[in-house]
């Protein structure tokens, strides 16, 4: 599966965080790489959305939507925003 950019999930992020997030700063919890959210690698398999670090490929964020509820896992991030 090919990655798109964090920019592509700007709408989803806005839904979850209530504000524009694609220009927000993020730091990878595994390798420490700092990037704007728009620069992260986004994979969208059928079940949800997986955001990975472009340096070390670690999973940073996972979003799964079920019945209008979005489950959010941000454990791969050291900091966001």
């Amino acid at each position, binding site marked *: 599966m*090919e*990655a*798109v*950019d*964090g*920019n*592509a999930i*700007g*709408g989803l992020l*806005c*839904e979850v965080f*209530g*504000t*524009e997030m*694609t*220009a927000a700063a993020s730091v990878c919890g595994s390798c420490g790489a700092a990037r*704007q*959210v*728009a*620069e992260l690698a986004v994979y969208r398999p059928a079940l949800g959305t997986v955001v990975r670090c472009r340096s070390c490929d670690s999973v940073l964020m996972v979003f799964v939507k079920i019945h209008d509820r979005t489950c959010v896992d941000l454990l791969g991030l050291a900091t966001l925003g």
Partner: protein
Amino acid sequence: MAGTALRRRLTWQVAKVSAVTVETASVRTLTLDVPDWPGHQAGQHLDIRLTDEDGYVAERSYSIASAPGEPVAITVERLDDGEVSPYLTDELRAGDDLELRGPIGGYFVWEPENGGPLLLLAGGSGIVPLRSILRHRERTGSTVPVRLLYSSRTLDDVIYRAELDQPASGVEVIHTLTRSQPPGWSGYARRADAALLAEVAWPAAALPLAYVCGPTSFVEAVSQALVQSGYPPERVKTERFGATGGT
């Protein structure tokens, strides 16, 4: 930055299609009448949501094709196996309703004060947000020098061809046609790679600002070549939209 516009809650709303423009055999521009549009920045996108009779929902993102201050427009390429685009390009007519939310994105945007010189690199329908930037530059009277390299499969696949044939002052448009070229074609006829960029890109010493939009393979090749030629990574803004679309 339109701070207040960005902080407002992003909600779905119903827009009305006010015009459908044929761009190429598979590409249409939909001009939309959006009652509660807060205004957008050049380079932003919006989300479209289609709901079928049994409640199945499909969402897709589309770059905004128009400049800030112009009626909202999106340009859609028909993907034969797509869930959303065939409906948008083949079924929708002026007067139809369409559910959307936006504007979205604060990264792949350009304002005149961001300066340049600008290097715009488009693969296929990746031209759409870059066209918004070009129109915004012209409408604001910016004199930032621009080079646009636009990679398409064939001349018939070039979107906004008439508009790009008459660029504003200070804008240079360079085409490359990767699959076939018409007789007498004097432009480039190869993929956008390091060698081609060495010929057309501003030198890194000019401190250019680059926007790259297209299929993932195009964006990866172009952005890596730019960084290797000395562009600082933070001056190369990218927007990959997956494997779809042709370059």
